[in-house]
């Protein structure tokens, strides 16, 4: 009999199954795929941000030996493919026909025998641009006389995209009218980029005989992409197969459909040969899904030190096409989680979105639909309020936390928080940090002229979308699925609608089956990413794999266990009610030796089935979650600032996370450390910015800075575990917690070092020159 330990169910830090191929260099990423007769595609991108295209002359490029075809928007328009729908119900140019609307926009594609020849040919395409004034901020975009960016859209008379509100305006106004103190903060969450180490790409293979399109592509959501392809191309879904092979990181960047995928597929259809398109890094940084770019104004109303109202007004820069990846009815994603971890009785959130001559996207960079911006806003605002009120930032949080007995808690903007014990997580973080002692050290250091800062951020995320009634993308309800097939030998294959990009699904999901059905996790093969071979699912992003697909995997295991019970009763000649279950076997109550293992049952399911029962031990479960899950955590950061240069060094990071039940703690901690690093990068160095002409600054890793091992701090991790009450395993999702929660902790630490001198805000990335400027302004620079 297998023990719970041997089957490696929940709570075991087992080594990852997927590691074996990666450490041998035997992963299968999209660029590793080579098909017979395969051609290579490269994209010509616009060098300017806003211009009318007078003409595109491709004749010199077409004449280059080795070039097979040059595709322009005109050619695509003839097939009704020049424009495609976005995930936010807008349209996006596949290849520009009338105008270019951002630097880096796709103008033409060369398909050639080699990628080198295709790149050569790009230089031989002559485009005549008539320059138009570029709009590079949403404030500019909404001015009366701003140039109209989307003149392609009928009825679009300004650059305004949407107006969106959440919460109760009247109640909030009342709270502010009755407040005895209001604290405000203006902050800008700058544009950054997920920049997975592997860029986007695909190999499109349309079979000229059958007409079936197989597209190997970097996709976090292969099933959604198949449906979008079907809608764009007008093909039935069984004629489209999306295969998402190993993915070299995603972080949200691989959620949208990009023009390159569509053009490569169209080219393969037209040429009858497979076409590979692999984006270069500049293409990735300047054209694919960026993140944030939110201008935020927040106000907190207080009575004494009790928060009574929250008002947030935002201006969102969406770039040239509104292609945010988010549930359709939430134009600002789930930003209305901005009340955070606090019991604030009234809140009102207003967001306006604007087109600019910048790359489209607005994906969440390792974040569940704008939750990062919300968490940053409230945690920076609370920190500001603490200084203004003269209260310790931790005390102010403790006093205003939603208390454990208030769950389930309905927030002022309409979320139903499922569970939590915020004070316990906060206390654990303070204890690990030695908070009181550190405050004394800080005061002593200040006496010596040294600037130490202690930053705290307490985040609450909302992840695991749906439920489908509320959350849908392009009409698709945000459920997810798991199909489990147990073979006669007792080994199993689990097929999922999600797709790992490094999160370790092959291990974690095997552990879920081990826990629920008693099959050792080594005996469960997890398959994902191939739409011909897996049940429909909405994909992996927004920390939703464990909350949604993980629940589906648990539920199908439980359904099969019920069938297994019937078979076991037959084998043991006992009644079902007399059987007890323990991981891996059924036994007769009172006679633990009279038992049938799950392997015995699996064999019998194909060889010795009781009358009236269908053969086999297989099934599929579609899980539509009853609610979101609400992971939370307390992050604290200690920094020291160099008064001569403004450089700041992270001395400590203590992160306490509550993501509910942890399936594989090692993998969970890996996710948290990765997120803390990306959060550090965002806080300290990552920036996509533009000059006044709309030239992107941040188009290579020379300008778009990512943290290396040298700058990245050490992390001290700890956990509390309050299970989600509605998730079958009590899990909540964790992939994005640290990216959501940590930027405010790093920035709060820097501000904390300067707060005594009156500094309240430095916008990210908090580079040393900005800090030095702040030091100089308050007379602290050396």
């Amino acid at each position, binding site marked *: 009999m297998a023990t719970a330990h041997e089957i490696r169910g929940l709570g075991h830090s087992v080594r990852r199954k997927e590691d074996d191929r990666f450490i041998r260099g035997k992963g299968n990423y999209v660029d590793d795929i080579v098909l017979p007769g395969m051609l290579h595609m490269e994209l010509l991108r616009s060098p300017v941000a806003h211009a009318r295209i007078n003409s595109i002359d491709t004749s010199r490029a077409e004449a280059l030996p080795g070039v097979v075809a040059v595709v322009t928007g005109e050619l695509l328009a003839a097939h009704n493919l020049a424009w495609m729908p976005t995930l936010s119900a807008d349209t996006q140019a596949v290849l520009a026909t009338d105008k270019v609307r951002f630097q880096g926009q796709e103008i033409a594609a060369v398909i050639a025998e080699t990628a*080198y020849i295709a790149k050569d040919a790009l230089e031989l395409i002559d485009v005549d641009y008539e320059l138009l004034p570029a709009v590079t901020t949403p404030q500019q975009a909404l001015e009366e006389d701003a140039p109209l960016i989307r003149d392609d859209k009928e009825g679009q008379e300004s650059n305004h995209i949407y107006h969106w509100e959440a919460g109760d305006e009247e109640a909030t106004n009342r709270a502010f009218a009755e407040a005895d103190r209001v604290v405000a903060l203006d902050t800008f969450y700058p544009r950054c980029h997920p920049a997975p180490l592997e860029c986007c790409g695909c190999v499109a293979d349309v079979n000229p005989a059958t007409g079936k399109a197989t597209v190997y592509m970097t996709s976090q959501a292969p099933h959604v992409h198949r449906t979008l392809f079907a809608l764009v191309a007008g093909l039935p879904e069984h004629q489209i197969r999306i295969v998402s092979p190993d993915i070299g990181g995603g972080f949200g960047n691989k959620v949208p459909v990009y023009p390159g995928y569509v053009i490569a597929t169209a080219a393969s259809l037209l040429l009858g040969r497979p076409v590979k398109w692999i984006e270069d890094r500049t293409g990735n940084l300047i054209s694919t899904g960026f993140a944030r770019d939110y201008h935020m104004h927040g106000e907190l109303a207080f009575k004494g030190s009790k928060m009574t109202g929250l008002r947030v007004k935002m201006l969102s820069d969406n770039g040239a096409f509104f292609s945010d990846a988010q549930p359709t009815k939430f134009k600002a994603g789930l930003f209305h989680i901005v009340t955070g971890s606090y019991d604030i009785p009234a809140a009102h959130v207003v967001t306006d979105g604007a087109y600019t001559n910048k790359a489209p996207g607005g994906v969440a960079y390792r974040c569940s639909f704008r939750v990062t911006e919300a968490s940053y806003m409230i945690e920076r605002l609370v920190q500001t309020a603490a200084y203004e009120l003269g209260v310790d930032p931790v005390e102010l949080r403790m006093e205003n936390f939603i208390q454990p007995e208030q769950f389930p808690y309905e927030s002022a903007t309409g979320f139903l928080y499922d569970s939590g014990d915020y004070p316990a997580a906060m206390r654990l973080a303070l204890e690990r940090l030695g908070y009181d002692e550190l405050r004394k050290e800080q005061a002593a250091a200040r006496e010596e002229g040294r600037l130490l800062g202690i930053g705290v951020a307490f985040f609450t995320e909302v992840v695991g979308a749906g439920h489908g009634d509320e959350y849908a993308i392009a009409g698709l309800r945000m459920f997810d699925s798991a199909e489990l097939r147990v073979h006669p030998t007792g080994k199993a294959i689990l097929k999922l609608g999600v797709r790992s990009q*490094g999160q370790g699904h092959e291990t974690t999901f095997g552990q879920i089956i081990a826990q629920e059905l008693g099959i050792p996790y080594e005996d469960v093969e997890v398959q994902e990413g191939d739409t011909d071979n897996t049940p429909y699912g909405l994909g992996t992003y927004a920390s939703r794999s464990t909350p949604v697909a993980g629940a589906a995997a648990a539920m199908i295991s439980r359904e099969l266990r019920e069938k297994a019970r019937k078979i076991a009763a037959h084998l043991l000649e006992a009644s079902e009610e007399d059987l007890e279950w323990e991981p891996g076997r059924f036994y007769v109550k009172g006679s633990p030796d009279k038992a049938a293992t799950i392997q015995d049952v699996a064999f019998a399911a194909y060889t010795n089935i009781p009358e009236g029962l269908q053969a086999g031990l297989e099934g599929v479960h579609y899980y539509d979650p009853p609610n979101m899950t609400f992971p939370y955590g307390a992050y604290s950061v200690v920094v020291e600032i160099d008064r001569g240069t403004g450089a700041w060094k992270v001395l400590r990071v203590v992160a306490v996370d509550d993501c509910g039940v942890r399936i594989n703690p090692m993998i969970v901690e890996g996710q948290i450390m990765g997120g803390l690093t990306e959060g550090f990068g965002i806080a300290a160095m990552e920036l996509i910015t533009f000059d006044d002409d709309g030239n992107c600054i941040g188009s290579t890793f020379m300008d778009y800075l990512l943290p290396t091992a*040298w700058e990245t701090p050490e992390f001290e991790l700890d956990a509390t575990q309050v299970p989600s009450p509605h998730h079958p395993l009590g899990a909540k999702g964790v992939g994005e917690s640290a990216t959501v929660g940590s930027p405010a902790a790093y920035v709060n630490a820097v501000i904390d070092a300067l707060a005594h001198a009156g500094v309240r805000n430095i916008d990210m990335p908090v580079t040393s020159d900005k800090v030095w400027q702040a030091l100089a302004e308050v007379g602290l620079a050396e």
Partner: protein
Amino acid sequence: MAVQEALVTRPVTVSVNGTERSAEVETRLLLAHFLRETLGLTGTHIGCDTTHCGACTVLLDGVPVKSCTVLAVQADGREITTVEGLTPAGGLHPIQEAFSAEHGLQCGFCTPGMMLTSVALLAENPDPTPEQIRWAISGNICRCTGYQNIVKAVQHAAATLKEAS
């Protein structure tokens, strides 16, 4: 014009993972493409095109180089080790074992380059401090792990190698 001049070819012979390989290549062909496309060794990855990310790191005569910034012709007559050459028959190199044991990888894209840089470090300094490890791998970007477990993996491999010697 530039496009035509680039099409000059030269014969190249290199020892890759102990096997001699020859090919006639364009002089502009990058070593990373030579390994991946001409030789089919796809364990070497390309992440940035500008020598920043280190996903394409291989050992050239034992020294880590970013193969996206080395021409294949520059490798002529020299020895190259890729991740495929790291794996001994029927087992794992201590660095491979350590990366898995310490959860030093997630998506796996940076892993081959990261391991080769680490192998070169350990050849030079069998007992590196965490700080020395962080400095040595600072030319290799990992977007997933936050580096802490990579540092542990290199220490783990150092201990294994020390025990074996």
